[in-house]
């Protein structure tokens, strides 16, 4: 028996779930999955396919269903879809079905509730499933039929990805957060810069980030085409998981001599908050070069930036100020627990006093579903993840992606500005 060759954290997690000591990039493996996720848009298709197989769910506790996209139901068709999910969860006794009023946006809810832990393999019928990589887990989006097959088998196939390493160094400015780091990286490598690859985020700036900031970074790995984003776990990861993790966890780290397809090193000392202009997440400019972009709406929320830290930053900017008369500011805490904590801290009071609309958790406006759909010609600044044509409504509307501080400042000013730009 020779020594096991060096591996990245992504390789190690996949190897452990494939019953192997070593897997190499390009290899096809069948791996056990710890958690499977679907929502009110993707679950109905998965359920239809699953029922064609004619078996029981391999492990009801492993299948998590969260109606979060078009809920609270926006119309009759959405209500029918949510009912399909609810009925299935009851019929199969799924303990991890989360109803409106007790739920959250899936990618904020699952880590918060301890349903996903370091070392897991997680697949979700939602592309932003890659968020959980912030815990040192392998997490990736799949379609409904892949999910259906895994609900029956408890495993799925993967092509082991090559890894790209991103090393962030320097001292980021006060209004620069996880959102800016990932927008900057996507701006550098492009929306297909990480196609089929793992994006591994490391370096002192990542070490210094909160878990909330780390979730934001991994959340948008898919925007560069990545299969997964991942941050090797450290003491912050462990502190986050302890007390909430519902299963034992395992910490995997990359070997120092592991092979990477490419290593990107960024010094972010002079990095400004970033804005992704329409209609692509890689169309990134520093906020000071945004020019005169007059806006109609601001959305602060989503699986990217609706966590407590994001709301605190927004409240810091909005405190004692008023939303511009021509702007609609919509703020959506991403889970019930975060909503309650924001109430306790007075953040919600600050938002409402500033003239914002505050909503129960929903993905709603991010994908142009409800709760803030744009009319023809309207422009929005959003802390969400995609600014594709028609993403938030009319095909001739525009979305500018930014961090919560820039979004809040822009809501006050009426055009895109950095927080330093508002009085």
């Amino acid at each position, binding site marked *: 028996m020779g020594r096991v060759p060096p591996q990245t954290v992504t390789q190690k997690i996949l190897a452990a779930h494939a019953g192997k000591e070593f897997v190499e990039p390009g290899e096809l493996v069948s791996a056990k999955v710890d958690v499977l996720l679907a929502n009110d848009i993707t679950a109905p298709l998965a359920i239809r396919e699953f029922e064609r197989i004619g078996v029981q769910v391999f492990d009801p506790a492993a299948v998590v269903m969260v109606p979060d996209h078009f809920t609270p139901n926006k119309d009759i068709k959405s209500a029918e879809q949510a009912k399909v999910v609810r009925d299935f969860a009851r019929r199969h006794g799924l303990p991890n079905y989360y109803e409106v009023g007790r739920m959250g946006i899936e990618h904020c809810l699952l880590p918060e509730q301890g349903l996903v832990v370091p070392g897991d393999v997680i697949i979700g019928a939602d592309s932003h499933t890659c968020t959980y990589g912030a815990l040192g887990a392998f997490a990736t989006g*799949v379609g409904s039929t892949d999910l259906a097959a895994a609900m029956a088998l408890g495993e799925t196939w993967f092509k082991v990805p090559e890894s790209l390493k991103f090393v962030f160094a320097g001292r980021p400015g006060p209004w620069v957060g996880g959102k800016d780091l990932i927008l900057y990286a996507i701006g550098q490598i492009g929306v297909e810069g990480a196609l089929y690859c793992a994006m591994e985020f490391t370096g002192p700036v990542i070490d210094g980030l909160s878990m909330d900031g780390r979730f934001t970074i991994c959340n948008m790995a898919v925007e560069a085409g990545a299969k997964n984003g991942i941050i090797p776990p450290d003491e912050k990861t462990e502190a986050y998981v302890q007390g909430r993790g519902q299963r034992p966890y395992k910490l995997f780290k990359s070997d120092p001599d592991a092979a990477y397809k490419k290593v990107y090193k960024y010094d972010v000392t002079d990095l400004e908050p970033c804005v992704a202009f329409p209609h692509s997440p890689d169309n990134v400019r520093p906020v000071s070069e945004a020019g005169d972009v007059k806006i109609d709406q601001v959305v602060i929320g989503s699986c990217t930036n609706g966590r407590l830290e994001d709301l605190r930053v927004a409240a810091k900017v909005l405190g004692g100020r008023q939303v511009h008369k021509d702007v609609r500011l919509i703020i959506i805490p991403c889970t019930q627990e975060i909503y309650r904590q924001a109430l306790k801290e007075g953040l919600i009071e600050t938002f409402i006093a500033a003239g914002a609309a505050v909503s129960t958790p929903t993905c709603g406006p991010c994908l142009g579903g409800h709760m803030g759909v744009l009319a023809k010609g309207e422009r929005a600044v959003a802390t969400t993840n995609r600014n594709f044509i028609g993403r938030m409504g009319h095909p001739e509307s525009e979305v500018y992606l930014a961090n919560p501080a820039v979004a809040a400042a822009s809501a006050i000013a009426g055009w895109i500005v950095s927080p330093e730009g508002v009085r």
Partner: protein
Amino acid sequence: MLEGRVFKFGDNIDTDLIIPARYLNTSDPAELARHCMENVDPTFASRVRPGDIIVAGTNFGCGSSREHAPVAIKAAGVACVVARSFARIFYRNAFNVGLPILECAETDNIPAGSRLQVDLTNGRIRVVDSGQEYQARPVPPFMQEIVAAEGLIPYVKARLGK
């Protein structure tokens, strides 16, 4: 052998262009087909005919994991999608729902509106008028097994002895 008329699209055709989220309150293939490609070409759904072929650039199907995207394309009657590259979730989804897709480096050279022949068994692509031929990348053997089983669900059923 497939033969159809070419509808040409560019790079990074995302899933919001293929099927906008405002129509995702249904999973009925016929309903989804009526809005296929609406955000990039509102006339597509009314012009496309059974057997037509989509030819596109890089990263086709990027964005959301919605399987409604390949379902909409298939239900619109499109026989095959040929692109320089595909986003990975779309790539898996297409095989799983039985929409044939091929990766070909030279899609830029295939003219819009031309008639195209595609041989799925060997990846040969031929522009009928000019006789120009191109070779698509071979489909990985594992994906061929799924295609041979006529989709992932029959493949899983066979494996479970159902």
